[in-house]
């Protein structure tokens, strides 16, 4: 798992696995590459986050579940409207209406796609909830 530290607060470390499913993935990569996170092996890796970025179709649910189960104890981030509720595809039969129907979601990030600030905010919130 790649390990990152927040540039603005290098004490906050995070491990990130991203499930690249649709266009939100590109925005997530842009957020990761925007300089708000730096790859670092020195920082502690808490929290561990799995980012579900993009449209989850019913056909993909088993693969997504498998990925999440392969990382026990990981926190699930629902990144963007599609993963959270189906988003623009809310009326489409093959799209699942939110990943919280089958996994426990630690944090939802609104947006289509979410802004990098929202992603960083979510990472911070997760880190704070770990401390508490």
């Amino acid at each position, binding site marked *: 798992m790649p390990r990152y530290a927040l540039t603005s607060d290098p004490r906050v470390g995070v491990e990130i696995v991203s499930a690249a499913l649709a266009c939100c993935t590109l925005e997530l990569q842009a957020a990761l590459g925007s300089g708000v996170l730096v790859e670092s092996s020195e920082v502690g890796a808490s929290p561990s986050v799995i980012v579900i970025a993009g449209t989850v179709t019913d056909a993909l649910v088993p693969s997504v579940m498998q990925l999440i189960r392969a990382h026990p104890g990981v926190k699930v981030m629902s990144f963007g*409207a599609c993963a959270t509720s189906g988003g623009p595809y*809310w009326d489409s039969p093959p799209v699942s209406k939110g990943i919280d129907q089958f996994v426990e979601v630690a944090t*939802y*990030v609104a*947006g*289509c796609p979410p*802004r990098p600030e929202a992603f960083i905010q979510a990472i911070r919130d997760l880190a704070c909830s770990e401390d508490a």
Partner: protein
Amino acid sequence: MKHSFIALIEDKCTSCMLCVRECPAWCINLDSHTVEVTEEGARRPKKVNVLDSFDIDYSLCMYCGVCIDVCPFDALAWDEHRALTSTNREDMILSIADLRPSGSS
């Protein structure tokens, strides 16, 4: 202007329902009622809509801006102040008080 939030300017909203009907994600809910107001010098009272509640479900919203485009009174506007995250999906439904534009309180 960052397109990171859609704000509601409550005073400008006439409860015309255009945004609610045009929203492709069906993420706006609006409740209103009508009252009769008699203006001084007017012969008959006129009907005025009063906004009771206005909710945007940000877990569904795709930030397309159609609601902003169709609003005839500019009651909806792009706003840059918020990165919206939540640990709970219900908390992503924002109502009038949470939808105020940045700079106003």
